[in-house]
């Protein structure tokens, strides 16, 4: 797609969309949203970028290796955080009783492991969306060039 208008608008909009996505991820425990929704927003912004420019520009911003790493990393982080509670002598995925600091309710850095879980889920979901889209489009490009 080679459209100047789309590109300029995209360049303007994408940072704000990403900022909003990060806001939704990090404020999951304070306001509606959370890892899933925020991750999807961030992932959608990356897809939007790749759609408006091209795939190479998109994968320069987020390479395949990094995306794979983020994808596994988010899920692994979730499980490891659960194991931390177990090492502290509580059951898997325990939050308060395992001694994660709850902080003052209403602050950004509060509610212990929930903040961490949201971020992990956000990473996971965002990179999942990107990976899926890139691979689908990439496959079709290869397919078309071979024909």
């Amino acid at each position, binding site marked *: 797609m080679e459209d100047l208008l789309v590109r300029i608008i995209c360049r303007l909009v994408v940072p704000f969309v990403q900022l909003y996505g990060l806001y939704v991820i990090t404020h999951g425990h304070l306001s*509606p949203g959370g890892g899933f929704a925020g991750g*999807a927003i961030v992932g959608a912004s990356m897809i939007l970028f790749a759609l408006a420019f091209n795939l190479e520009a998109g994968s320069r911003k987020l390479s395949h290796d990094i995306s794979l790493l983020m994808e596994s990393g988010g899920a692994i982080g979730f499980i490891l955080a659960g194991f931390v509670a177990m090492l502290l002598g509580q059951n898997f995925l325990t939050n308060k009783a395992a001694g994660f600091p709850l902080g003052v309710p209403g602050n950004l850095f509060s509610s212990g492991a929930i903040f961490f879980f949201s971020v992990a889920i956000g990473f996971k979901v965002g990179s999942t969306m990107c990976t899926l889209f890139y691979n689908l489009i990439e496959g079709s490009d290869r397919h078309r060039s071979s024909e």
Partner: protein
Amino acid sequence: MTTGIEIFLLTFLIVCAVAVAYLKDLLSAVIVFGAYSLIMAINWQMLGAPDIAITEAALGAGVTTFLFIATISKTRRSE
């Protein structure tokens, strides 16, 4: 109870759902499905579930549409 706007939204929802099934052009079907998701998101919000509304808007109206379009670009456009 049910207000006018709710009845309008629900009717539109049903129309969208039926249209998705009937449309032969898959690209149009995907776009109508995106509209369906958006109305669904508004409905969630009106029912007092903002979390689901945000997720539905981002996933249903945003990412799902992109993924469907990517899939259509790999296959045929019409049914």
